[in-house]
């Protein structure tokens, strides 16, 4: 089955990017889910959706103050709005010639590059070819909601892997990375406890 792109790149650097998509995109990823960006030079970048923004425009501003908004108007606004939904992606690794690396991506994607959601086998492939190195970048980036992002990510991983064997070693790595930062570690484990 041919994968369907969910959006195109708006801006990027080597640690993160933002892509845009339509508001009613059927296969739009959820917060914390994995996406991939194939590049023309053979690289494929992997990332997690770390934020989703829906900005307002002039029409929305007018509509929200109207006494009544009909169903048709709402649908029309969502289908035909000028402002895309912006999804922030934090990069977690990259792949070339089938070899996966959990380090910072060597080059950022370019404007309008297509973004695809990761299928379960792709998730498993990425995780099983590394030593949790990408967790370092996730947990030590103060601008990311580490606890919730990791929990959402683990939830998807558990679905993808159909078992929890991967969870324990990954959490050991989490604890090893954060054990000197008691408040953050407790936040992360407290959030992860929801799915364990």
């Amino acid at each position, binding site marked *: 089955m041919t994968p369907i792109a969910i959006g195109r790149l708006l801006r990027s650097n080597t640690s993160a990017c933002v892509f845009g998509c339509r508001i009613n995109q059927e296969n739009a990823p959820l917060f914390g889910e994995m996406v991939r960006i194939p590049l023309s030079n053979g690289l494929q970048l992997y990332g997690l959706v770390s934020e989703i923004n829906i900005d307002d425009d002039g029409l929305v501003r007018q509509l929200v103050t109207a006494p009544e908004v009909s169903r048709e108007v709402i649908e029309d606004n969502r289908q035909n709005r000028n402002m895309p939904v912006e999804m922030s992606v934090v990069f977690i690794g990259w792949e070339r010639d089938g070899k996966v690396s959990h380090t910072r991506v060597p080059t950022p994607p370019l404007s309008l590059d297509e973004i695809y959601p990761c299928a379960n086998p792709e998730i498993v492939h990425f995780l099983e070819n590394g030593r949790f190195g990408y967790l370092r970048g996730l947990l030590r980036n103060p601008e990311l909601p580490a606890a919730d992002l990791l929990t959402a990510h683990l939830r998807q991983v558990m679905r993808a892997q159909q078992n929890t064997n991967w969870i324990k070693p990954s959490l050991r790595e989490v*604890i090893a990375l954060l054990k000197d930062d008691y408040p953050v570690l407790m936040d992360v484990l407290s959030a*992860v406890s929801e799915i364990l």
Partner: protein
Amino acid sequence: MTTSTGNLQADNSLNRPIGYVVGGGLKANLFVRLTIPADEVQEGGFVVLESGNWQFYGLVTDLQLGASDLRYAELPNQQRLSPPAMKLLTDQTLYTNLEVLPALMLERGPAPDAPDYPAWAQSHQGENAPRPLPIKTVPAHHAVTRLASAGDVAEIFGEPGGANFIVGRTREQDHPVCIDLEKFVQRSSGIFGATGTGKSFLTRIILAGLMQHDSSSILVLDMHNEYGFDDTASDTGMPVVGLKTKFPAKVRVVGLGRASTIRNKTPDLHLEINESDIHPEDIELLSRELNLRETTSATLDALVHTFGSDGWFTAFKNMVVGSVIENEDGKKVPAPDSVAFWANEAGANPMAAEGLRNKLNRVFNRPYVIERAQNDAAAPNSLNHIIDALKAGQHVILSFGDYESDLDYLLVSNLLTRKIREAWEEMTNAYRSHGTNEPRPLVIAVEEAHKLLNREMASQTSFSAIAREMRKYYVTLLIIDQRPSQIYDEVMSQLGTRVSGWLGDENDIAAVLSGLAGRDALRGMLARLQPKEEVLLLGWGVPMPILVRSRRYDTKFWEELQGKKAPRSTEENLKALGF
């Protein structure tokens, strides 16, 4: 070398790691991060640390709880975290460190499948075979640590059998721990422990081992009549087999005094002491017991000068205190049979002599002290009988019967020991000068040793001399005591093997550990031994300190020691009797 290095390595594979080295040193001990639950390792555990081509042996002296951040230990998070998350967090942030006293190291060489193994094995054969060495370096960081296997214990303490006598077993894994009885008797030894910790049973076990091995004679100064005949345990009421029962042909029970009985049984020999055998030094060591004054030595010197060393005691006993007669002038003067008369004649102080005579009444009145004519064949010298039996390879248990006072114990034991010392010195000198038969090693087991070896008396009794220098003359002591701190330091420092049960007093603990490396680390261990059946083996006689569960003195012990006894042949019986 009883276990080859190759066997050791095969044996090691059966033992899972319990942790890895995280720090420490020779002086500060080693620290091992535990990777198994803390309750699977106990203080006193015998551990092996594998590092490169060397294997290190040590003793767990402490377990310390730690946390990578104190908040993980101080703030329970069960309410915030799910059980799996909690377990993962606990596993990685809370830990236990073992403190290990390193004692020995053994070169184990490369792995058998390594290319350089054949060359190493070739160069480490025969005299060059690896053997345990005192610790001189430390294992590397992250060296794998495991509990000692049976092979490790045998490598260090020897395989059971021959002179290697099982004294107990390791606590965690129940591996037999041996002491080398040949080595044990080469220097004086001590068995210590507070009252009720099983000293007497442990002493019986070791004595039984020595008697079974039969390479030395044993004299037991049995103050409480425990060792010879069957007895009943004071705490459990269970019957306790006597050594005489198990070694009827080798053990002679001697009772003090004529017609004495021990546990309602008649001893093999009654010990009576000839007055001529008592020398001034035997009296001087009773100074505290008899409250003798500083003038005693001068008076005794004068007595020996007047009557000779064999006759002074009888002569002094026959003198009368205060006896006077009237002289030609009608003045009262000391009678010729009086103490004062003799003192005036001998130039001694009459008052001091009369005081000494009065105080010695307690000795003169001992029923077992008898006057016997020289060379009286009708009244054989029982002291000489004891010495002859010991020379012939028999074991003697001297029971004090009803004479349980300190005076009896001090007088008889010191006198007997002095005689033995003279006899063995004579035999040794003859052996060295003329090549006569080598003297048979003799072990003198001394109960309540602090009474004879305290600071005041040690210099006066034969016991301290034996502890210090009689090793060269084939005589050593086995000291049994509950207050080792009361024993003179100089004697304690000479003890080769020390076997100690639980001790509560700090001074006693310090005394048992005096002169040993790592005593600070061992101190706590000694204070926390189980009240019964746990002992610490220490000192020169054992390769390294080790905590063991001591054997039980029961039917199983005797079966293991003597086997299911088959009837002995007449020849064997005659041989056992010394013919």
